[in-house]
């Protein structure tokens, strides 16, 4: 007797512990095997791009904090870089170095969360995550020292920074930079050769090189697939051309490669921080600008290598006090587009960690 079977459709999300917010996946299962997956986004849409049109250029900076709220500083940076490009505004060298320092601190912090939550999705019950929180806490203390905030910093300004760092910041950062490699070694000890972690991540959620390029993925997801593309090298901004660092690339494009790329990038970020502290010049941190910035008529695209990938702001000015149009290229959203191809034919548990390995933040996906 042939039993009649039919696929089961499960709505994972928008309330689900592993969709990292209000992301929804409409998954068709055959037993535990995924037959189809349809991502549904938009539950956190706040119309940030439209809000930009009714605020002055400076007033929009705090709103960028709310995009990728795990890496607010880099959102600030990408936006002010775009406006500075539009208005041909010079930034003092000290501010440029401090911006690099902030961006790399943010990258370490964001990667810690990405790796920690990915392993949490794998079912490790918070232990690796809480070890990573220990270091993230130190970074948040540093950010608090700089600007008084721990999550949404609002520290960058058009033409520089809101103010210089306090005198106790640099010694504290130096201490962190000397300690951090030891902590990364500790994570490697806990995770790198863990048999279960290898079995769960090797060869799972493969994103081929071609598909990665065709879906215009960026950041660790693209580099995990073996494409050596990093905007810090490909189109250097700030003072990245004066700093030595390497771009790690994976070979297979599986979850393990993405994990590995993030771990190596943290080490490289520490290296950048060391050099930036050494080269940090004295001087002003902000160019004097009129209270209301009015860039000349035109358009500009400023992009940076955010922790999650290429974060770009495309701004059109009609010489008014607010952007005529502001578009945000959010890496989380674009990296997410290849999700279906990565998980169809695999199991439920694989889909969860594949999503975790892409490292999305819903504030950025839905804007």
């Amino acid at each position, binding site marked *: 007797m042939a039993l009649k079977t039919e696929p*089961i459709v*499960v709505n994972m999300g928008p309330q*689900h*512990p*592993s969709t990292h917010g209000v992301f929804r996946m409409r998954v068709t*299962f055959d*037993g*535990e095997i995924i037959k189809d997956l349809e991502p549904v986004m938009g539950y956190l849409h706040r119309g940030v791009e439209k809000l930009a049109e009714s605020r002055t250029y400076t007033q929009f900076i705090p709103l960028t904090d709310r995009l990728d709220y795990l890496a607010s500083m880099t959102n600030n940076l990408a936006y002010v870089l775009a406006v500075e490009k539009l208005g041909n505004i010079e930034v003092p060298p000290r501010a440029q170095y401090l911006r690099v320092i902030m961006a790399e601190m943010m990258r370490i912090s964001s990667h810690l969360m990405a790796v920690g939550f990915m*392993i*949490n*999705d*794998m*079912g*490790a*019950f*918070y*232990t690796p995550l*809480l*070890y990573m929180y*220990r270091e993230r806490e130190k970074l948040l203390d540093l950010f608090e020292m700089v600007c008084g905030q721990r999550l949404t910093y609002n520290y960058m300004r058009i033409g520089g920074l809101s103010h210089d760092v306090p005198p106790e910041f640099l010694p504290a950062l130096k201490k962190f930079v000397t300690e951090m490699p030891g902590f990364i070694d500790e994570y490697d000890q806990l995770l790198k050769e*863990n*048999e*279960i*972690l290898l*079995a*769960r991540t*090797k*060869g*799972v959620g493969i994103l081929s090189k071609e598909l990665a390029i065709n879906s215009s993925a960026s950041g660790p997801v693209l580099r995990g697939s073996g494409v050596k593309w990093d905007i810090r090298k490909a189109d250097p901004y700030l003072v990245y051309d004066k700093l030595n660092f390497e771009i790690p690339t994976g070979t297979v494009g599986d979850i393990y490669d993405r994990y590995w790329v993030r771990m190596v990038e943290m080490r490289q970020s520490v290296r950048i921080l060391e050099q930036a502290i050494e080269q940090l010049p004295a001087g002003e941190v902000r160019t004097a600008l009129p209270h209301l910035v009015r860039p000349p008529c035109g358009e500009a695209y400023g992009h940076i290598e955010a922790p999650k990938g290429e974060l770009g702001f495309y701004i059109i000015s009609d010489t008014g006090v607010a952007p005529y149009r502001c578009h945000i290229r959010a890496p989380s959203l674009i990296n997410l587009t290849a999700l279906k191809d990565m998980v169809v034919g695999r*199991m*439920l*548990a*694989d889909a*969860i960690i594949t999503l975790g390995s892409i490292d999305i933040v819903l504030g950025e996906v839905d804007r």
Partner: protein
Amino acid sequence: MDWLHWIIYVVIILVFVLTLVMSFILIERRVVGRFQLRLGPNRVGPQGILQPVADAVKILLKEDIIPSKVDRVVHLLAPIVTFAPAVLVFAVIPFQQAGPGLGFALDAPAAMANLDVGVLFVFAISSISVVGLVMAGWASNNKYALLGAMRTIAQMVSYEIPMVISVLGIVLIAGSLSLADIVDKQNIPFILLQPLGFFIYFLGATAEMNRSPFDLLEADSEIVAGVNIEYSGMKFAMFFLGEYAYALAVSTITSVIFLGGARFPWGLLPQSFIWLLVKILLVFFVMLWIRSTLPRVRIDQLMGFAWKFLLPLSLINLFLVAAEGMLPSGFTWPIVALNVTLAVALVVIWANRFYRVGGAKVA
């Protein structure tokens, strides 16, 4: 005075199970907290010892929700079917052996029923709890619960086989199915004579009670707590208590079968139920250690591990025990050395082989 015996033991077992389950909940939260660089609950009472009481009061005051589309009878019966077997197991546990002990002497093993088929009883009863979980998964009328129930059947049925075969080795050595007899025979703890058996039993038992890294049944990050997703209030508490009662049962059985129960190792001190308690806590600590260190395995890896890794090893182990049983007596220590070496060698060799044939790799 038969009825008095029953009543006394019912009280003893209920007090034993409930107090230890309560303390297990607290110990788990505190110990896992230490593993995770945090303190754990320490606000309610000194060192947080009243936390389980506070939790119990909270959960009793919760509204008892029965979703409208559930199968009411099965839905309400499932928590009881899950919880009861975990307590029933303790009916055959010898808390202390007959003879002189620390403080007082007994003329019979301190067990509610010293069954001649104690081991069989333990495994027969404990496998009933899977029925309760399947009932819960089916009756909840929820897709996550159903997925969880499907995983449960596959997992529990698979892991029972290597687990039972590994205990057969102990039964061969002891020559009895009675738990009191098994403890009596442990002039050295059977974990030394049967390291491989212990390894297989412990892993199998970890999977049986759905603890990490085999906690697929209630994988929070995948199927959102699985079978108990639709349960609230006291019904959920029954599942929760059942899980810990089962963890307690497994710790106790492991202590009795492999660690010598109430006996102090090598009889250096008189036997006492206190040693049993210490051993139970030790075994539970190892479970917590595993839980807070390892990520979860995937369902196909889990099944592969049971059928391709644990089952062959448990059969080899049974063969070795039978072969060693034919040796004349008096070779205890050489056999211990041989078995420990063999256990390590077999696990390493089989793990490599398991990896090569693709057991742990992608399907």
